[in-house]
């Protein structure tokens, strides 16, 4: 009877431990919730390890770690390497705290039975640790949005306190503990502290790297547009410089009665000027030129275009963000038009102001097979490293204005809608 009780108790404590591990990893890596199924899985795993415990302690531990990794990989789709790192150190931390609690209670109550693995008192100590874990789990689940931050803080605090407690244990003389054991735990707690630090640094590094990549992409986009604008303006400058030569030529044509040739000559000269003064869309020269040039490219390739823009002036929307959004969206649309199966091609750009929000909509003809998987369009372009970043850049720009990006593809129309909230300045 007691054996059965013991097995049940162990299954529950192990289950809680496994669940806590899953919660921690999923929270840190994905900032999402674990479902109810995780609870059941943890308990099942706990039961399994409890039953198989007498076989080999270390072997069972290894099996448990493997099982957790499999659950994380298959069920929650986490990266294997970082999961292994987190799980291993989690197990070490739990062992440390089990040891601390059992020894601590033994010292406080002057009862060495707590430290013995096989006694009932030890089980009580372990349960105390598990209760603490349950409290932490509830706290994290309740916190919702700030959970990740809270969790990070908690992990650091726990590892520091663990280290401190171990040091206190080495100094106390109420209960004599074997040196080897103490040293082992001191070293492990130091390693634990180091691993926490390492993890934090790694996380920070990853975030900064992503930010840097986004910025570089944006800068490249702006640079290329700026260069194009410069080129057109310089062509214009040359035009005025050669003006008197052109006047001479025109004088020649007209005085010889060749008005047709004169007209042709003037038409040739007018083209660069026309390109610049054709349309004012947003009031921002660089953005307007970019829109005009991309639409010109589309029209040149025989794509039916329609541009309808109502852009409010004096907003806090930065030129760089607008360029990033429009540039990427129009580029994507133009790139999609090389598929021969989707003619007639069309490209519609609509920008409207609704209340204090700006809605940007780009519609173009599309192939049905665009994959909309996992909230991001998987790129069909050959170079997966650099492309596909376009939409991420758009989303990042939109989120700066409390906005978002929505992509849909139905009835042969690929539609991207970006919404931004602006302020009048």
């Amino acid at each position: 009877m007691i054996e059965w009780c013991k097995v049940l108790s162990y299954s529950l404590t192990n289950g809680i431990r496994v669940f806590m591990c899953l919660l921690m990893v999923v929270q840190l890596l994905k900032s999402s919730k674990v479902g109810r199924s995780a609870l059941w899985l943890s308990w099942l795993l706990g039961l399994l390890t409890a039953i198989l415990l007498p076989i080999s302690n270390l072997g069972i531990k290894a099996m448990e770690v493997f099982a957790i990794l499999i659950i994380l990989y298959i069920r929650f789709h986490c990266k294997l390497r970082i999961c292994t790192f987190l799980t291993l150190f989690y197990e070490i931390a739990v062992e440390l705290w089990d040891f601390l609690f059992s020894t601590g209670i033994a010292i406080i109550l002057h009862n060495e039975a707590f430290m013995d693995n096989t006694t009932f008192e030890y089980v009580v100590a372990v349960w105390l640790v598990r209760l603490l874990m349950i409290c932490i789990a509830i706290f994290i689940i309740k916190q919702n949005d700030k959970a990740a931050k809270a969790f990070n803080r908690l992990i650091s605090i726990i590892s520091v306190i663990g280290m401190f407690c171990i040091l206190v244990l080495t100094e106390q003389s109420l209960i004599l503990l074997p040196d080897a054991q103490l040293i082992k735990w001191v070293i492990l707690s130091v390693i634990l502290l180091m691993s926490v630090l390492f993890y934090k640094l790694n996380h920070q590094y990853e975030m900064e790297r992503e930010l840097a990549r986004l910025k570089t992409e944006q800068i490249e986009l702006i640079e290329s547009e700026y260069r194009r604008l410069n080129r057109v303006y310089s062509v214009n400058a040359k035009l005025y410089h050669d003006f008197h030569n052109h006047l001479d030529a025109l004088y020649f044509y007209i005085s010889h009665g060749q008005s047709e040739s004169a007209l042709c000559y003037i038409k040739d000269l007018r083209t660069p000027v026309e390109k610049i003064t054709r349309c004012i869309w947003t009031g921002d020269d660089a953005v307007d030129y970019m829109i005009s040039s991309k639409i010109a490219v589309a029209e040149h390739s025989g794509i039916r275009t329609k541009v309808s823009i109502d852009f409010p002036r004096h907003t806090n929307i930065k030129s760089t963000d607008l360029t990033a959004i429009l540039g990427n969206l129009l580029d994507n649309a133009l790139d999609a038009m090389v598929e021969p199966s989707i003619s007639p091609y069309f490209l519609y750009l609509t920008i409207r102001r609704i209340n204090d929000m700006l809605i940007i909509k780009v519609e173009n003809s599309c192939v049905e097979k665009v994959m909309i998987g996992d909230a991001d369009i998987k790129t069909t372009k050959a170079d997966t490293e650099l492309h596909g970043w376009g939409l991420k850049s758009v989303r990042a720009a939109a989120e700066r204005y409390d906005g978002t990006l929505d992509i849909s593809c139905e009835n042969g129309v690929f539609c991207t809608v970006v919404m931004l909230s602006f302020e009048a300045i």
Partner: protein
Amino acid sequence: MNEKAVLVLIKIAICDDKEDAVALHEKIVRDSLHQCGISYDITTYTVSKNLLYDIMEDGFFYDLLLLDIEMPEISGMQISEKLKHILPNVKIIFVTSHTEYAIDAYELSIFRYIPKSNLESKLASGVVDAAKLIELGAKQEYTIKTSKRMERIPYKDIYYIQRDGGKNSILYTSTGISKVRKTLQQVHTELSAQEFIFIDRSYIVNIIQIMKICNNTVVLKNGVELAVSRSHLQEVKQQINKFWGTHI
């Protein structure tokens, strides 16, 4: 059944100091709205003072004003300034001979600027877009029936609905507050319109009344700010995005 199709009549005022311009604008508006099957009622003015007098003194109501920005006595911009408080939701379309006018971000009532050089097509599309937005949410009404009263509220007048205790809801509208003995979920099902979304377990908001999103709060036209629960935020943004994406 709380849905009843309502006939929506868009009241339009056209004002230009040149008679033939007024006639031309009127013709364009009639043709374009007729094509879309939208009912309208047009009143024309050649003296802007009369238009102002009618609205301010005689309480005339208009949904859409079509004005020439370069009228002699009072300019179009001054009219928009004066009408801001009396007709807060009016949409104003300015016809201008310049090409560089643009809507200023703080001028909410200026719907669009139409250049005289491209009058026919731009005015037609401008009027149709304005009419569609005015119609949005005006066709359906929510009926509240109790033993003492029956109230019909057009959808577009509902700002937001708040949960009141377990089984009741409070509707905040442009005319005041209405209480119903229905749960928020029931009200949502009865409304069955795309523009009403849950931003939180206790709030339903009318997308048409959302001015903007600021951090995690939704700011409404009447100045009320409601917090969106974190778990709903992305979804709320997507819903607003989708809604306006299909309506522009």
